[in-house]
């Protein structure tokens, strides 16, 4: 019995093993890797990717995908800095505003997916295009600024640890809690596992889907805020990379693109694997073209590994 449980969680365990091996291996090979300073860097670097990937995990768990995440990140970072223009007293209202806008976008994604039945890949691709266009109409070049106080989000430190670690940890913890402790989390898995069955069991699947897309847009907004703080300025192209980057840790973490299987427990080590790899390749001075090739190979290999498991 016990063994069976183990076997079920095997992919997740493997991700953790890979992470540990990578971590220990890099520490041995590079003397700078395992220094307080570098580890702090690492954690700070992981935060943004970690937060968007948390939202993406939800979207993929219901058998969907959210390609609009990247442009929402850009939008929120531009709006935040663009409206703030360094004025500290506007901070709270602006944060509320950008989150509200992201929630609205998430809602529209979910609404269109549930209403029209168009594949989420297409709806969110369309939405990505729309939002990206809107950002570029709003601001054509990096612009705006933030008040000094807001810098704390990305650059502050609490004791030894950088503040982003807490920000990321809070989001990740909340995500895990929602997925595994609440009825909503159960519905997310059920909707991903078999939507029709979930619906016939009385789960309001359309509502679940809409909420999930709101969650993913919400995490995108949190990332946008973080990037605004980290960069001090809104950049209309800052989020572009997250469209595809956010999906990679989710899949490395063993969540299946067909939905209903996996979860954040795999995504989090996935985020760190990617961050450590990029960090380590920089430390070793790997030429950037080869870095691309390694990235591509990792994506394929990591996933090739589990899908064969079944």
């Amino acid at each position, binding site marked *: 019995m016990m063994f069976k449980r183990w076997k079920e969680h095997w992919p997740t365990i493997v991700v953790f093993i890979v992470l540990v091996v990578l971590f220990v291996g890099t520490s041995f090979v590079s003397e700078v890797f395992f220094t307080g300073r570098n580890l702090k860097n690492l954690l700070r670097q992981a935060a943004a990717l970690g937060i968007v990937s948390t939202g993406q995990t939800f979207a993929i768990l219901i058998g969907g995908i959210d390609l609009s995440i990247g442009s929402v990140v850009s939008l929120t970072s531009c709006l935040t800095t663009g409206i703030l223009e360094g004025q500290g007293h506007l901070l709270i209202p602006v944060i509320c505003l950008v989150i509200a806008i992201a929630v609205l976008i998430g809602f529209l994604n979910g609404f269109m997916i549930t209403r029209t039945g168009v594949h989420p890949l297409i709806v969110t691709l369309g939405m990505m295009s729309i939002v990206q266009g809107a950002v570029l109409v709003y601001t054509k070049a990096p612009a705006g600024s933030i008040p000094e106080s807001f810098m704390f989000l990305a*650059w502050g430190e609490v004791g030894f640890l950088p503040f982003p670690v807490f920000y990321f940890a809070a989001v990740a913890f909340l995500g895990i809690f929602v997925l595994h402790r609440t009825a909503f989390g159960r519905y997310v898995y059920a909707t991903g596992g078999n939507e029709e069955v979930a619906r016939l069991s009385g789960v309001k699947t359309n509502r679940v889907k809409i909420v999930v897309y709101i969650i993913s847009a919400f995490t995108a907004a949190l990332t946008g805020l973080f990037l605004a703080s*980290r960069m001090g*300025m809104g950049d*209309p192209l800052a989020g572009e990379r997250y469209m595809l980057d956010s999906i990679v840790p989710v899949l490395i973490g063993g969540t299946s693109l067909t939905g209903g299987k996996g979860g954040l427990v795999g995504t989090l080590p996935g985020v760190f694997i990617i*961050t450590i790899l990029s960090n380590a390749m920089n430390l070793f001075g790997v030429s950037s073209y080869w870095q691309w090739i390694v990235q591509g190979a990792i994506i394929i290999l990591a996933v090739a590994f589990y899908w064969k498991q079944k």
Partner: protein
Amino acid sequence: AEERQFSRSYLWDSNAVVMQDMTKYKKNPPYTIGFSNASISNSWRVFMDREVRAEAEKHKDLIKTLYVTDAQDKPDKQIGDTEDLVAKGCDLIILSAATMAALDPIATRIHKQGIPIVCLDRRVKSDNFTSFVTASNFTQGRMMMLWLCQMLKGKGNIVMLPGMAGAGPAEERIIGAKEILSQFPDVKVLDMQYTSWSPSEGKRIMAAMIQSFGNKIEGVWCDSGLQGSGAIEALQEAGLKVPITGEDLNAYLTRVQKYEFPAMSIGFPVKMGAEAVRTSLKVLQGIPVPFIVNVTRKVLTTVDTADVKSDQPWDTMAHPEWPGDWWIDNTLPQNWLPK
């Protein structure tokens, strides 16, 4: 309309030579230098990257190691890359920022730690760096527009094909161009469309503009040779031989030559990479450097105007036998040219 006279010094940046004391950075060689590059995803950036490396190799006696990172156009990644370089204990960081703002906080932090930073090509927003090696985008925009307006004798219709929506240099070149435009009330901009610095977009957009304006187009302002090389082909196919602007990209230069267009080019020179290394060495040796180092650039025209004159004949720069993606105004030794 009357032809206006401009002095060339107006176009160049005036605060270029503010020398700064560098004794506090003085160190004994050999040095470890980090180069945080925004990307090498287009040939301009590749050439610049090579200029940096080639120059570092020339100074092997002084530079022990040169670490180079590539942020793949991701500002967020570049912040991490730069942190990684500091973690590796670099004595100086050369930073070619993906965006002015994104890299500002990290540059500020490094600067405050006492590690010198030399910005290259694109600076950061605040003044928290040691020196900035560049060629002004504003100047480029102004110069191109001035030539164009003077070619039209101060009256006519033009279209503007700037670079990438969302990118800083593109906006700066537009601002420069508009400053000049405001002096020429009779030059009308029919339309302005971003081209993503892509030859194919340049051609596609130019073709559509020809369809909607036809012969009304009397001049084309492109902020770079990339879309310029595409646009010129669309113009040639439509039989519309109008003045056009661009940069020292070989494809652009050779097409101008081949199709015999009235054209001008002002390089945003890749050789600033080498200059950045030389400036860095001065910093580490405690030799004073300017806060902003403006790299000299070549201006080419097929037809001179009152204020814009060619530095050398066009044909000496256009090399049909070389790859179209090469940047001609470089200082790379033979063995460093990408082959």
